[in-house]
């Protein structure tokens, strides 16, 4: 198992370590529910050093990225972050990622931990433009501070006015109490917050400084468990569940990140065709009517027929309900429709509802 630079800190602070995509990371500290509510109401601190970072530099770096992802980066400004899926020629998803634009010739791509090596190979094998690609994941640690109190806490460590960083914007070479870092107003919880990129050697020190800076505001360390329930309530997709090699971004409700009017990009033909014919499957949200918690891969039925499966399901701590996301045949993807989730071989009633389950509270 790979260890992040914060591994020892997690051990010392009582984090419960599990294996996740080849990494040893805390699944929880005080408990998933407590951490979840803390992020919604105050702020939580996450170690996301397992995420992959890939740098793309060169005269045609922008042209290259524009061709390989589905979103349009041609209008992106310096210090802007763009979320995008990246597709295979058949429209399946290689990964979803964040693109940090430093300038026209320098970008940083942040990819899912478990996909880092696959993505790196994908980037290299599809390179035709004048650009260099480097996997710098081992040289970068990442800490996320998420929740409504995040800005007030992080502000204590820097002279930079954090209010100047807009939603999906970033600043590089910021000093956070003596530590050099890149800070973006991004996250994976549906709350306001920041993601901080820094040198691995500086990560344990900054982690401890943040915890003490946020003590009064109620900042707590949080684990992968809460990270998952938080992103799920906000209906943010997780690679391998809502999107995958076999699920297109159009099926996964990510159409606004697929710019079919772009001249050329990987997967364009397949996605265009899919859009014209309307995708065969659609991701929906549902809540249980009967008693039961839906889980990943549970089957969904209607009128005795199999119509799809649950991509993510859980008890929702914020809503105090059992809810799920499911990929269904499009004909059945109608709000208010009653469907059946097969839980331990029993068909249990659920109702399709509007997404997201939880309205994101971004500071825009």
């Amino acid at each position, binding site marked *: 198992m790979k260890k992040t630079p914060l591994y020892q800190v997690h051990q010392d602070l009582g984090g419960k370590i599990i294996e996740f995509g080849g990494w040893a990371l805390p699944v*929880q500290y005080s408990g*998933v529910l407590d951490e979840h509510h803390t992020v919604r109401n105050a702020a939580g601190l996450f170690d996301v050093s397992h995420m992959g970072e890939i740098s793309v530099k060169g005269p045609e770096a922008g042209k290259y990225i524009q061709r390989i992802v589905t979103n349009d980066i041609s209008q992106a400004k310096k210090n802007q972050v763009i979320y995008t899926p990246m597709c295979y020629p058949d429209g399946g998803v290689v990964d979803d990622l964040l693109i940090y634009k430093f300038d026209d010739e320098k970008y940083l791509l942040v990819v899912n931990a478990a996909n880092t090596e696959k993505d790196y190979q994908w980037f290299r094998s599809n390179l035709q433009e004048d650009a260099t690609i480097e996997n710098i994941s081992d040289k970068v640690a990442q800490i996320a501070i998420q929740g409504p109190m995040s800005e007030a806490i992080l502000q204590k460590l820097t002279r930079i006015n954090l209010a100047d960083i807009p939603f999906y914007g970033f600043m590089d070479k910021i000093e956070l109490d003596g530590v050099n870092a890149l800070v973006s107003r991004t996250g994976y919880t549906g709350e306001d917050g920041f993601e901080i990129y820094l040198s691995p050697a500086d990560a344990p020190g900054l982690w401890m400084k943040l915890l003490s800076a946020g003590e009064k505001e109620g900042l707590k360390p949080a684990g992968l468990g809460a990270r*998952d329930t938080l992103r799920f309530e906000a209906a943010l997709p997780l690679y391998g569940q809502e999107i995958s090699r076999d699920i297109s971004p159009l099926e996964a409700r990510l159409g606004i990140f697929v710019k079919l009017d772009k001249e050329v990009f990987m997967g364009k033909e397949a996605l265009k065709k899919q859009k014209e014919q309307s995708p065969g499957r659609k991701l929906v949200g549902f809540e249980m009517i009967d*008693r039961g*918690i839906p889980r990943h891969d549970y089957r969904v039925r209607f009128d005795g027929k199999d119509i799809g499966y649950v991509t993510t399901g859980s008890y929702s701590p914020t809503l105090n309900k059992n809810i799920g996301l499911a990929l269904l045949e499009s004909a059945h993807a109608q709000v208010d429709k009653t469907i059946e989730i097969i839980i*331990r071989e029993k068909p249990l009633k659920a109702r399709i509802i509007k997404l997201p389950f939880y309205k994101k509270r971004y500071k825009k």
Partner: protein
Amino acid sequence: MKIPEGIKYSKDHEWVKMEGNLAYLGITDYAQDSLGDIVFIELPAEGDVLASGQPMGVVESVKAASDVYMPLSGTVKKVNNVLLDNPESINKDPYDSWMIAVEPTDASELETLLDHVEYKKLCAKL
């Protein structure tokens, strides 16, 4: 980790407390701690006849669902339905949160269960 004296334990982390002719069953402190926040449970019905080792219910934390196994064979005489709406009480008080009470089919099965010293040893090895 609480492992009280005077009750029996299974290797699957259930506890058994005899009161009169009924065996009260629940999950141990170790089990609730490993599961994390419990948010849902399923229990059998009164009158169900269940064999030792058979699943008698399900405990679900935020992250996952786990079966609870019968530590001995018996007929379900009482079901603690209060727990259905308050599954978190298993986290707070695992030994007060009995799930079902059964009339054992074979009293000798009780002897095959662990006492608190043996169970403590088992947990120490995990």
